[in-house]
């Protein structure tokens, strides 16, 4: 069976709406060409925003300020709990406050290169331009960024960047940025422009006359299923890393909102691009429910090693220097422990596969601070990393001042997502997608501190400008509650709920989710092969069948029912998992977070294939399997080169 047997190729993507002209003028020119909505008319236009993370809260608050009527949804009990809250490291912006040579162009260049030449130049340039305004906006909201003694904002270099462009608020940057957006959102709630619906989950998209016109939601407390109609729908529902079951994402993160839209016609782009973060706390046993990230900044001072000999089970302190392998320093003398995330992750997997891993199951490598403590003193190390060391100790019961940390890679971020054009609109008119939920700016690999930047860029600055061009044609015709499309969407939701509650099964949802996660991690994780991906597609298909036969969901429809919520999410993960494998199978090159074992150099580095694969893979949900639409990528400003960190 060739890879083509799993899908069929359709027409190329018709139009990305990217403006032409000099790259630094494109955003300005799009803003000027986009139509505006006069303030009196905005009141007549309703916009649904699904999600209250950085991308959703910023969009909902800004649209509310502009005078649109906004309905904002999240599944948590408060908008402030969206997963963005967990981001630690920081947010990039090309402010060049350090005078160290940073500029919009350099951030643009670094992001295109970091994405391994699989993103759109126009989008990335806009992101770099807008980045500076984000910091201004957040400071005005009172976000307590780290400051220097002179009172100005502090910056650090992050993820191997050569300039200091990362703004941060101790180890809680995501929290502070999200609280800023949340407070702006609550201000609009008080002003009456935004209606908030917490503990509500979107379960279907409503498409009427080829336009996105509303959603079906379930009230997670009462179980009531209802619909809301609007003039446009924005999905800011986050990433899909939880398809792996174990990831650094929050437990509730899921793909349902975007997957349901995909099933209604929205293209899903580059689903196989996932980011694996090298420094997470390893799994401690079968009870493990999630993985915890240890900030990347630890690699600035920690040295990564494993025993030189396989099966060496001495305590780390008993292994003499000469019998340790500092494999990153050995393989990458120029970057050492600071190589990019994908490279560090793969190298850790390689030494563990050789049987040299440490800790339970041999799935870990040491991150050792002994040299740093010797050089800087324990106090200095504590001042820098104290909170992280405490967190590590709380979770593992081991003291990292005395014993090296054990770390292992974990799924962290998904670059893929719903396909959007330059205006952040999907191929379904009126359906916009922002933040991690879309695919737009990071190509095949995201740089550290760039997701927060993108979420806020989309929500505060891009979407509020581009959506007006679409809304200028509104308000659209009223849609009755018994309209065929509405009734059909609502019925689909009710049917699914009925099915799960009445299924006479004997296995829990979590047991299926764990098993799916293992398949994904094994075959569609850090290293992918033709053979493995084919196997995975078969295994997922079988497991999915078993899921529908054997899944057991207790409780009723008309109440808070967390098992029912999970069942729907896992059902969608199965279908997404299949598409991820097909996407990974068809892309026979290695690029960014997608490493195909067949496409590597003699010394084991990723080999891109620009001839064949310089395109975005936008997948349509076809009746008989996925249909691939290619969007060719054009590089006018940054010449594609092979990355090298030797």
């Amino acid at each position: 069976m060739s890879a083509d047997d799993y899908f069929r190729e359709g027409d190329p993507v018709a139009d990305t709406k990217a403006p032409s002209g000099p790259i630094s003028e494109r955003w300005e020119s799009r803003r000027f060409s986009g139509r505006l909505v006069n303030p009196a008319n905005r009141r007549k236009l309703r916009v649904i925003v699904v999600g209250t993370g950085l991308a959703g809260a910023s969009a909902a608050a800004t649209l509310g300020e502009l005078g649109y009527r906004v309905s904002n949804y999240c599944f948590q009990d408060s908008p402030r709990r969206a997963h963005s809250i967990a981001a630690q490291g920081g947010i990039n912006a090309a402010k060049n406050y350090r005078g160290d040579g940073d500029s919009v162009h350099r951030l643009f260049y670094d992001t295109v290169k970091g994405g391994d030449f699989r993103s759109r130049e126009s989008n990335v340039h806009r992101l770099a331009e807008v980045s500076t305004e984000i910091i201004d906006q957040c400071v005005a909201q009172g976000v307590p960024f780290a400051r220097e003694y002179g009172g100005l904002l502090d910056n650090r270099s992050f993820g191997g960047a050569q300039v200091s462009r990362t703004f941060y608020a101790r180890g809680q940057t995501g929290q502070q940025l999200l609280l800023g957006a949340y407070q702006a959102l609550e201000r609009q709630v008080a002003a009456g422009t935004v209606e908030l619906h917490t503990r509500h989950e979107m379960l279907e998209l409503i498409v009427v006359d080829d336009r996105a016109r509303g959603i079906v939601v379930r009230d997670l407390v009462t179980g009531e299923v209802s619909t809301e109609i609007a003039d446009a729908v924005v999905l800011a529902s986050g990433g899909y890393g939880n398809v792996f079951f174990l990831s650094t994402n929050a437990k509730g993160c899921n793909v349902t909102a975007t997957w349901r839209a995909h099933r209604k016609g929205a293209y899903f782009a580059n689903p196989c691009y996932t980011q694996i973060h090298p420094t997470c706390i390893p799994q401690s046993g079968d009870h493990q429910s999630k993985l915890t990230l240890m900030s990347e900044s630890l690699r600035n001072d920690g040295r990564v090693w494993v025993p030189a000999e396989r099966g060496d089970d001495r305590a780390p302190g008993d292994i003499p220097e000469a019998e340790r392998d500092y494999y990153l320093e050995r393989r990458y003398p120029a970057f050492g422990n600071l190589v990019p995330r994908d490279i560090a992750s793969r190298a850790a997997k390689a030494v563990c596969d050789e049987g040299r891993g440490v800790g339970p199951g041999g799935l870990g490598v040491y991150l050792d601070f002994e040299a740093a403590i010797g050089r800087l003193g324990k106090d200095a190390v504590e001042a820098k990393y104290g909170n992280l060391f405490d967190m590590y100790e709380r979770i593992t019961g081991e003291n990292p001042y005395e014993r090296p940390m054990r770390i292992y890679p974990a799924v962290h971020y998904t670059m893929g997502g719903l396909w959007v054009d330059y205006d952040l609109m999907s191929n379904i008119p009126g359906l916009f997608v922002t933040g991690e939920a879309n695919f737009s700016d990071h190509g095949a690999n995201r740089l550290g501190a760039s997701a927060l930047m993108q979420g806020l860029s989309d929500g505060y600055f891009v979407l509020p400008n581009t959506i007006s061009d679409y809304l200028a044609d509104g308000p659209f015709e009223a849609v009755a509650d018994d309209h065929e499309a509405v009734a059909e969407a609502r019925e689909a939701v009710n049917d699914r709920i009925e099915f799960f509650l009445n299924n006479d099964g004997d296995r829990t949802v979590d047991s299926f989710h764990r098993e799916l996660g293992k398949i994904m991690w094994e075959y569609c994780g850090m290293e992918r092969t033709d053979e493995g991906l084919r196997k995975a597609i078969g295994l997922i298909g079988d497991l999915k069948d078993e899921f529908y036969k054997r899944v057991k969901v207790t409780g009723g429809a008309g109440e808070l029912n967390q098992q029912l919520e999970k069942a729907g999410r896992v059902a969608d993960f199965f279908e997404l998992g299949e598409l991820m494998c097909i996407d990974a199978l068809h892309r026979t090159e290695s690029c960014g977070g997608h490493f195909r074992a067949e496409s590597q150099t003699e010394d084991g580095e990723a080999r891109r294939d620009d001839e064949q694969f310089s395109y975005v893979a936008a997948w349509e949900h076809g009746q008989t399997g996925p249909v691939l639409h290619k969007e060719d990528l054009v590089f006018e400003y940054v010449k594609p080169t092979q990355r090298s960190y030797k």
Partner: protein
Amino acid sequence: MKLKLRIWRQSGAEAKGRMVEYIVDGISEDASFLEMLDVLNEQLIAEGADPVAFDHDCREGICGACSLVIDGQAHGPQAATTTCQLHMRKYRDGDVIDVEPWRAGAFPVIKDLVVDRTAFDRIIAAGGYISAPTGTAPDAHATPVAKQDADAAFAAAACIGCGACVAACPNGSGMLFMAAKVAHLARMPQGQPERHTRVLGMVAEHDASGFGGCTNTGECSAACPKEIGLDVIGQLNRDFRKAAAKAA
């Protein structure tokens, strides 16, 4: 290890609740407290019983979703630690553990261990923000902020909105939560113009939402997983007095 759990079960907001006993076995000391509850729930589902509902999301101590009173203490026995970060190595084989929801007038129980904390959102909506419409901000360096002010603001802003302070307070007061936000914003130059309206609005909403009054027991700060200090309450009281005097 093997444990006996006594857990608050309540099928809905109007239903009567009670403590129910369960036994879990084979719990690893490396498991988190919530992972131990996951094990219990898998067991209950297998038996065809209704699993225990509880709020959680990030499981790394930052989202503020998890909210259990464990053996009478909000977030359990370990200081500066949310329930999700509490690990079973704190317990011994044979221990008996009581698990209950936050109990406070302003936080009605929805089901089992899940409570309704939307009153916190309403307090923020009543003034816990700085009005800074998108796109109107001056350059970030236009207003320097002394490092100690920024750090002090950060210390208050670290609140995760979990509600442990309310659960720990004998009066069910939301004072620490509210004061943390008041202090965060009052300690920044950007927060000055709305300083007085903010505190008046938030206090009015706090009182209207059914939270109790503050009698300085200090239980809130002792239970706070982010160690928000009582100094923020002093700040709120000062600001409130000034604002009220001015408004009078």
